[in-house]
C-alpha cells in the first residue's frame, strides 16, 4: 500500500500544491491531472523519493520511503519524461543492462517484439524516433515484475496502436494486484480503470 499524508510541493520557492493525501491499495490506479506547470511531475518524483516533499510524508507498507529506500525501490518502476535509456546503446543492450530481474536475450527480444520493435534491435537508440524510444522504455513494464508503477506521461509520442497496447498492459497489471500512478493529457481506454483522481492546480 502506498500512502501519502498531506503532501506539499514547491518549485523555485513557489507553492505548487499542498495537502495532497491518498491511499493506494492493490489493484488501484491513481490518475494525476492538472494543467501544465501544476506540479504533476514534481508530485510523481516525490512519490519515487527523488524529490523531498516540503511538507507531509509518504509511506510504503507502513514504512516511510526514505528509511526503507532499497525495499521500496525493489517494488517500484518509474518511467519519467526522460526515457532513462542510453542513446548510444541499442534497445537490446539498454534493456539487458537496466532490467533487474535476470533477463535473457530471448525474453527481451519477445518484449521488444511485443511493443512492435522487433526489427530495430541493433540500432542505437538515438537513431530511433521519439515514439520508438518510448516504446523501448515501456518494454521494461513487461520485463520487470514490480508492484508499483509510476509513469509520467507514458503516452507522449505514442501512436494509436501503442496507446492501446499500453492500456491493455496497465489493465493486466492492475488485475494481477499491482498499483499504478499515471499522468496523461490524452484520452485512453485505461481511464475507465482510474480509482483515485488527484487534481492539481
Amino acid at each position: 500500500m502506498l500512502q501519502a499524508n498531506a503532501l506539499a510541493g514547491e518549485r523555485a520557492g513557489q507553492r505548487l500544491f499542498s495537502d495532497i493525501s491518498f491511499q493506494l491499495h492493490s489493484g488501484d490506479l491513481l490518475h494525476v491531472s492538472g494543467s501544465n506547470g501544476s506540479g504533476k511531475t514534481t508530485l510523481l518524483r516525490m512519490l519515487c523519493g527523488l524529490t523531498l516533499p516540503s511538507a507531509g510524508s509518504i509511506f510504503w507498507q507502513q514504512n516511510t520511503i526514505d528509511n526503507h529506500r532499497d525495499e521500496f525501490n525493489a517494488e517500484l518502476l518509474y518511467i519519467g519524461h526522460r526515457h532513462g535509456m542510453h542513446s548510444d546503446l541499442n534497445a537490446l543492450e539498454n534493456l539487458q543492462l537496466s532490467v533487474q530481474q535476470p533477463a535473457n536475450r530471448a525474453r527481451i527480444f519477445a518484449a521488444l517484439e511485443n511493443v512492435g520493435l522487433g526489427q530495430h534491435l541493433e540500432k542505437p537508440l538515438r537513431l530511433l524516433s521519439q515514439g520508438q524510444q518510448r516504446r523501448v522504455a515501456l518494454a521494461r513494464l513487461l520485463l520487470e515484475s514490480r508492484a508499483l508503477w509510476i509513469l509520467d506521461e507514458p503516452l507522449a509520442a505514442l501512436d494509436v496502436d501503442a496507446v492501446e497496447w499500453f492500456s491493455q498492459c496497465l489493465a493486466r497489471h492492475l488485475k494481477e494486484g499491482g498499483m499504478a500512478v499515471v499522468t496523461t493529457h490524452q484520452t485512453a481506454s485505461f481511464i475507465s480503470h482510474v480509482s483515485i483522481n488527484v487534481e492539481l492546480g
Partner: protein
Amino acid sequence: MTIFSSWQRVLKRELLLAYRQRNDIITPLIFFIIVISLFPLGVGPEAETLRIIAPGVIWVAALLATLLSLPRLFSNELHDGTLEQLLLTPQPASILVFAKITAHWLTTGLPLVLISPLLALSLDMSSTALIYTLLTLLLGTPILSLIGAIGAALTLGLRGGGVLLALLILPLYIPVLIFASGAIIAASNGFSAEGHLSLIGAYLILTLVFAPWVASYALRVSLD
C-alpha cells in the same frame, strides 16, 4: 542481485558506452600528451632543466587532463534520465557510483599511466624517476577520479559548473600533486620515497571509503 554483480553490470555498461563514445574519451589523453610535449619547446631543450621540472609537469598535466574529463562523468546520464534510474535501483547508490568511478579511472586515469613512460623519456627522466612516475600515477590517478566524482556530482546541472568544479576540486588534488612529485624528486636524488608513497596510499584508502558515498549523496541533492 548481489552487490558485486550490480557493480559489475554498471561497470560493463559504462565501458560499453565509453567504447561507443571513444572520441570523447581520448580527449583528456590527447590533452595530456600535448601539454607535456609543449614544455620542451617552451623552456628550451636543455636536458638538465627538463629533468628538474619533469615530475611537476607530468603531474600538473595529469590533474588538468582529469579535470577536463570530469564534467561528462554524470551530465549525459542527467539528460537521458538514466541517473534517476540509477538512484531508483534496489542496490545502494554508492556501489553503483563506485562502478562509474571505476569506469572513469579505467578510461581516463589508466591511459595516462600507460602513456607516461613515453612522455617521461621525452623529458629526459632517469630510469628511477620513470619508475616512480609510473608508481605515483598508478596510486594517485584513482584518487583524482574518486574526488572528481564528488565535484562532478555537486556541480551537476549548474551553469558555469566547469569553473566551480575546478575551484572545488583542485584544492583537494593539491596533496596528491605535492606528495607525488615529492616522491619522484626524492627517489631520483637517491633518497627514500617511502614516506610520500605511504601518504598517497593513505589518501587513496580514505577516498576509496568515503568518496563514492559522498558522491551518491551529492547526486541525490543535485537531482532534487
